[in-house]
């Protein structure tokens, strides 16, 4: 068991280093740090001096090590625009994105898992067919379009909910939250649904597929042959077995919700890191792009690690380190 945890940790570090490498390569070779700091009119001598000062003439692996070291201290350099430290920019906007992501992830997981199990158990019923075809419409509509349509309906036509921004937020010093005010909560509803809908359909389809797969297994057939009730079959036998894939996809979706927030934040003018990133892409603001990449990578690695550890709790075969050989 210890071996497995160690192996996972090792993998996590490797992944982060790899993401850091890409992020570094973008930072170092796509952007031009000197030009961004000095502007176009600088002299050759000024440039050379700054190149030396920034360590741009050092061996590449040393620069990479430096980059990682600075990243570990949350130093991602300055934004090309406005020359603010990137870390500060991100810290300012992270709460907005995280609150949006968490709200929509909870929404997506709860509804996704419930409808997934429901549609697997009640195959062929009217309700199932309705949910399944609606979900296909959901998958076929781009996120931004859902957002626009929701705004049109609930903000413009019905005027129930705000169409942009976070509403009033409470400043807790290191964190700003919209959970504590009515307008903040109201502002969360439309963006969360927009962001969560696509994830919800994915979670639903996966839960359904897994449930159907498990229900085909011999131990389920045996349980049925032994006369066990539907309730016993679903909850005693099937549910634990779909937990692993469902947790995996949920974890992955949680991560991608953060990144998907780019679109939702643009539609709703939500002041989060996604909006920061999209502006960085417009203006080729490389330090922001590379820092954002690292941030998302870090979120994924952490989530994956938690998912892996959850596996160990659920599956006794993994605890004994056996599954690897069987597969």
């Amino acid at each position: 068991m210890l071996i497995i945890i160690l192996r996972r940790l090792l993998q996590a570090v490797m992944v982060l280093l790899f993401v850091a490498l890409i992020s570094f390569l973008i930072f170092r070779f796509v952007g031009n740090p000197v030009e961004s700091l000095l502007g176009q009119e600088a002299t050759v001598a000024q440039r050379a001096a700054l190149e030396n000062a920034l360590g741009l003439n050092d061996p590449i692996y040393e620069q990479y090590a430096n980059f990682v070291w600075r990243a570990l201290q949350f130093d991602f350099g300055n934004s090309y625009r406005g020359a603010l430290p990137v870390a500060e920019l991100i810290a300012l906007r992270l709460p907005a994105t995280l609150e949006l992501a968490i709200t929509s992830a909870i929404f997506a997981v709860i509804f996704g898992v419930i409808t997934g199990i429901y549609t697997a158990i009640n195959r062929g019923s009217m309700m199932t067919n309705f949910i399944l075809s609606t979900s296909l419409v959901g998958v076929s509509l781009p996120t931004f379009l859902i957002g626009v349509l929701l705004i049109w309906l609930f903000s413009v036509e019905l005027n129930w909910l705000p169409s942009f921004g976070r509403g009033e937020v409470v400043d807790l010093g290191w964190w700003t939250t919209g959970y504590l005010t009515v307008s903040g909560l109201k502002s969360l509803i439309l963006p969360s649904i927009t962001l969560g809908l696509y994830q919800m359909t994915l979670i639903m389809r996966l839960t359904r597929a897994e449930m159907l797969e498990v229900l085909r297994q011999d131990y389920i057939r045996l349980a049925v042959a032994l006369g066990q009730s539907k309730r016993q079959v679903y909850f005693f036998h099937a549910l634990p077995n779909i937990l692993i894939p469902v947790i995996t996809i949920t974890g992955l979706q949680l991560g991608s919700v953060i990144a998907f927030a780019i679109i939702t934040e643009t539609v709703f003018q939500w002041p989060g890191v996604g909006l920061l990133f999209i502006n960085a892409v417009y203006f080729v603001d490389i330090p922001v792009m590379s820092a954002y990449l690292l941030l998302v990578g870090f979120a994924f690695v952490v989530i994956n690690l938690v998912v892996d550890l959850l596996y160990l709790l659920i599956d006794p075969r993994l605890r004994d380190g056996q599954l690897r050989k069987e597969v």
Partner: protein
Amino acid sequence: MSKTREMTAPLLEISHLSVMLKKRRDRLKAVDDLSFKVYPGEILGLVGESGAGKSMTGSAILGLIDPPLYISSGEIIFDGNRIDQNASSIRGSKISMIFQDPLVSLNPLRKIGDQLVEAIRTHINMSKAEAFDRAKTLLAEVGIDPRRINAYPHTFSGGMRQRVVIALALAPEPSLIIADEPTTALDVSVQAQILDLLKRLCRERGTSIILITHDMGVIAETTDRVAVLYAGRLAEIGETASVLNSPRHPYTKGLVAATPRIDADSYKKKLFQIPGAMPDLEQIPQGCAFHPRCDFANAQCKIQQPPLFEDRSACWLLKDGSEIS
């Protein structure tokens, strides 16, 4: 022995059972007008080649037939009650089942004790603690150390897992167990142990067993009576020794002769072989399904499906009480 058996009432009686398969444009007969009885305390073998309909018959008894398969006609009577319409009341409690592959017959995420307790309490009203004790007794009975009751399935070998599956099948105290190829996935040495266990349970508990297999050797060594299926139809049924030693149906005869025997100089001889192969469901010929492969087939065989003669063999050659040679 056969005389006394005829006197007692059968535990299970299947009459004119047909199972159809709905396949795109067609309706195919997977099991065709099958009738046989199972008496208390006996092991009945269902033998046949793959696709002969033997597993499907087992599933039909338990009411485990799902679309695109469906029972189109016939009756299944268990202990005096018709169960082909509603099997769920007896499913598991009076009749239980053992599947082929023990590696996938147990829920990998549940302790075997929990699975046993769940199976026991489904049919017998008792407290968790009582059920737990009973689970231990069952494990001991199938030859597993009861101290391993809290182990997970993956810590057992294939043969041991099949013992756990048998304990699960025994949990509700059934009077009939349907064992579908219970040893096919196991090594021969383990197979012999499992078959011995099944025989012992049948003898000691008086449980009837329907043993579904493709292996004539297993039939010879385990069963009291045997039913030979061909293309979804009953070819021959009778006491195992009688069927194997003096088969009355040309198919059974061929099957017995084609089965390799452990014999010091059999490598010098050629095996008897039946030409061709069993037809797919789409291509079952008119008349006797076996006639294209049969050396004795006559005009009638090609037109009319033979009934069961002398409660033994479905072959036109037996119509006049004559023997095949």
